[in-house]
């Protein structure tokens, strides 16, 4: 069992870290404060294949394995989790289902443009009354001639404010004999595709999370992803993959907070010595370091299983549950180690602390992850 990173993975890590520290670090606090999506940096990322992480080369992607993909998200999020979020949602839950379930025509139409970042993707399942309960979407899709006409309101859509394409989960033929869940590839330019205001959120503020209003939005029938009744299946398979990305994002946040805490603990003097010489602080740092290392192993194991082509859903849920828990815990301790300064926007750990919380909420709350994991425990462990 190979537990050490390969030379390729290390070089990808160094390369993304260099980019993030050079391009994102100088603006991360500012774009968080002003809730601005950094378009010029996103443009640079397009040219470096950050939007086609696992897309095959024939469509202009980077064809990375899943560990490399996780490393990319981890390293971006170590510096700026909001940009890490844009990348992981685009790749993990917008591009991935098109790659996995798309027809040849859909792939030809969309994959290259998604992979080169010309189109930024979003995943649009959550509604006022549907989220954890994915089967309860109320957005409707009614067939009229060669189009489906979509009506409904989606909320908390990551990348919603800037996406060029969204995967819309809807109830197909709600008045028909057999209503079924379906997924539609909707371009932002389709008539009736209306963006709501960008949400005023606690963290991830540089990502334009918004509502989407579908007001008689006409989507061609050929834009149904998979079959008409496949919506729930596509959603669950996609979220299994997305969870790896959110786990990577949480891990990057925890790593960034840990490094900031170590640096501060060595610099900050109280009682005429650095606070890192106090046993209490050492205990905090030891726990943080251990938890981050454990989280990384759990995440990379889920990635390795996916690359082996075997079932990875339970491991992805475990990684997401644990990495997000570590992220909230480690960022909280990083604030604690910084004392009053940690509560100030002058220091990055304040942002990390706010950003971390949502990793326990989106792409399946921790409670949902536990449901998924418990199901596996009870079915697999026949004692």
């Amino acid at each position: 069992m190979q537990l050490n990173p390969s030379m390729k993975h290390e070089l990808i890590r160094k390369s993304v870290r260099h980019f993030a520290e050079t391009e994102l670090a100088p603006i991360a606090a500012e774009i968080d404060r002003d809730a601005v999506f950094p378009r010029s940096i996103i443009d640079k990322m397009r040219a470096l294949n950050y939007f086609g992480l696992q897309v095959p080369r024939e469509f202009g992607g980077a064809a990375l394995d899943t560990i490399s993909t996780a490393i990319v998200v981890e390293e971006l999020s170590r510096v700026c989790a909001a940009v890490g979020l844009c990348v992981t949602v685009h790749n993990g839950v917008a591009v991935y289902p098109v790659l996995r379930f798309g027809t040849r025509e859909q792939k030809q139409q969309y994959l290259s443009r998604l992979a080169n970042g010309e189109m930024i993707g979003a995943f649009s399942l959550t509604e006022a009354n549907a989220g954890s309960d994915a089967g309860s979407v109320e957005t409707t899709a009614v067939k009229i001639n060669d189009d489906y006409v979509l009506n409904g309101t989606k909320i908390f859509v990551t990348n919603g404010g800037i996406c060029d394409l969204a995967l819309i989960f809807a109830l197909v033929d709600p008045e028909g004999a057999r209503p079924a869940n379906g997924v539609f590839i909707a371009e932002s330019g389709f008539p009736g595709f209306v963006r709501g205001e960008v949400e005023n959120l606690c963290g991830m503020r540089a990502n334009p999370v918004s509502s989407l209003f579908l007001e008689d939005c006409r989507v061609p029938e050929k834009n149904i992803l998979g079959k008409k009744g496949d919506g729930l299946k596509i959603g669950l398979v996609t979220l299994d993959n997305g969870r790896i990305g959110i786990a990577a994002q949480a891990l990057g946040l925890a790593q960034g907070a840990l490094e900031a805490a170590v640096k501060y603990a060595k610099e900050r003097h109280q009682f005429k010595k650095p606070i890192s010489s106090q046993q209490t602080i050492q205990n905090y740092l030891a726990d943080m370091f251990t938890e981050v290392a454990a989280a990384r192993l759990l995440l990379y194991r889920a990635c390795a299983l996916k690359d082996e082509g075997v079932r990875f859903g339970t491991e992805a849920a475990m990684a997401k549950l644990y990495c997000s828990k570590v992220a909230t815990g480690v960022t909280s301790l990083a604030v604690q180690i910084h004392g009053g300064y940690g509560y100030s926007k002058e220091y990055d750990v304040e942002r990390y602390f706010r950003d971390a919380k949502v990793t326990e909420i989106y792409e399946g709350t921790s409670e949902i992850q536990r449901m998924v994991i418990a199901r596996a425990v009870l079915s697999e462990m026949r004692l």
Partner: protein
Amino acid sequence: MLKLIVCLKQVPIVTELPWDEQAGTLRRDLASGMMNLACLHALEAALQIKEQYSADILAITMGPPAAEEVLREAIALGADRGIHLCDRIFAGSDTYATSWMLARTIKQECPDYDLILCGSYTSDSETAQVGPQLAEELDLPAAAYIEKLEIHGRTLRVRRLVDNFRETLEMEFPALVTVSLENYKPRYAGLSGLEAAFDTGNIDRLNAADVGINKSAIETDGSRTKVRKVFLRKANKENILLTGTAANVVGDFLSKYESKISWAIGKDIEEDRNDE
């Protein structure tokens, strides 16, 4: 098609380099490596030549197995292939031995080159010797610390800043330059290129025997220098209050710190004052 060779070195990531102050040693084993910054600038210069003309770029490095990483990175950025000189008997080579071994490798593996590009110096030893010594070994015209280059037929025109003068030099191919940090800002490696560099990148690993070097040759033509000790230069801060009239303060200031001020501004102020 122009044939370019870029010599690269893997150096420790400085911020990660643990320093044992008492023993006076760098714990290189604990630090991960990166491509030396000036080498990245040299590679960028080569890539820009390749974009402007038709060119083939061969990247060469000498170092332990982990140094292969800089060749993969070079291929990800646009180099066409790599040669990795890797043998335990190369360990501890000084700049003389390194340039001698690089020269042997180049003569054997790619004698028909047009231009060799090196970084002007490395961040871990800062001798700036390998490039010029390699030019001597290969008997090539060379210019160090160049900040710009142009190619006119078989003529290379380079610009460099030396002793506050900007020089423009010309030489015929084949030639060697060492590239400064002034221009040729390195590009970022794309993820697609990084993946492909490991997937399909062409790197030959050569040991001492492959390039006709044996242990006795290393003993005869090997390293001429030995590092006895490495120490960290410390700057101490000291606050000094000068009092009295303005004329006294200025006079005191100049007489106490004359040599330091002269050094800082690059001008002998004692001479100036005597002239007055």
